[in-house]
């Protein structure tokens, strides 16, 4: 995850956030599902402030000039890259197929299964957490290593 943030989004991570469970304050969530062996989904949660900052840097624009739609598109791409990076490290007989990521409405439940692998980091402007939920609990260790 840190490699994706540093290489493509030019963000230095600041270690574990004070509260590893979820970002504080207004947040955005992006989710994408993947098919393969195993199938599952990845959910990215990020504070809105950090999301805007990341989007501005990624698009090479000033924060005030970025629209909410553009922020959503960048966060979806971030989720896509992290998911691909994680799955590339999973030993599997099949090739994974990633669906297009989407921004979740704030009303949608944030519950995750107890077997899901969660990784959270602190970045400038807030926290970011990624949850990988797979069909088989046996994959959790591999996905956790992938983080």
């Amino acid at each position, binding site marked *: 995850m840190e*490699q*994706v943030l*540093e*290489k*493509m989004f030019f963000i230095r991570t600041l270690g574990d956030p004070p509260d590893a469970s979820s970002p504080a304050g207004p947040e955005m969530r992006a989710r994408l599902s993947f098919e393969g062996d195993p199938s599952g989904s990845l959910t990215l949660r990020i504070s809105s402030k950090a999301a805007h900052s990341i*989007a501005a840097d*990624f*698009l*090479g624009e000033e924060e005030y000039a970025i629209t909410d739609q*553009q922020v959503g*598109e*960048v966060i*979806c*791409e971030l989720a*896509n*890259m992290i*998911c*691909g*990076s994680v*799955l*590339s490290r999973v030993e599997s007989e099949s*090739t*994974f*197929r*990633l*669906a*297009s990521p989407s921004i979740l409405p704030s009303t949608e439940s944030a519950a995750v299964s107890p077997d899901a692998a969660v990784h959270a980091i602190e970045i400038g402007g807030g926290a970011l957490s990624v949850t990988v939920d797979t069909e088989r609990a046996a994959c959790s260790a591999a996905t956790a290593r992938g983080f």
Partner: protein
Amino acid sequence: MAYRVLIVDDSPAMRSFVHRVICLSGFELSDCFEASNGQEALDLLGREWVDVILTDINMPGMDGEEFLRRLTKEEMLRSIPVVVVSTDATLKRIRRMMDLGARGYLTKPFLPESLRAELERTLGVPCA
């Protein structure tokens, strides 16, 4: 020589990023076209000539694999070099895309200078 590039990716943010990186890298770009999936790219190629194609794999509608298959079947298009830009870094996928005719493969995340290097390597541009 300045080159005409086609970027194929369903993410508008990614298309914008790649375009910007190409411009900032010093790569000699004359025109940059964009498409959100393989079919849109084929439709565009029916109207415009490009020197190189950068394509994602996972796209709704026509994905990168099918796009490559269609390109290699078209006499007028099969000579255009294709660089795959994807999050999939598995050897299996890389081999499959190269077997389908891709000339280059760049995995996300990538450093901006890597994109220019891969473009120039694919096009046979002498190193500066």
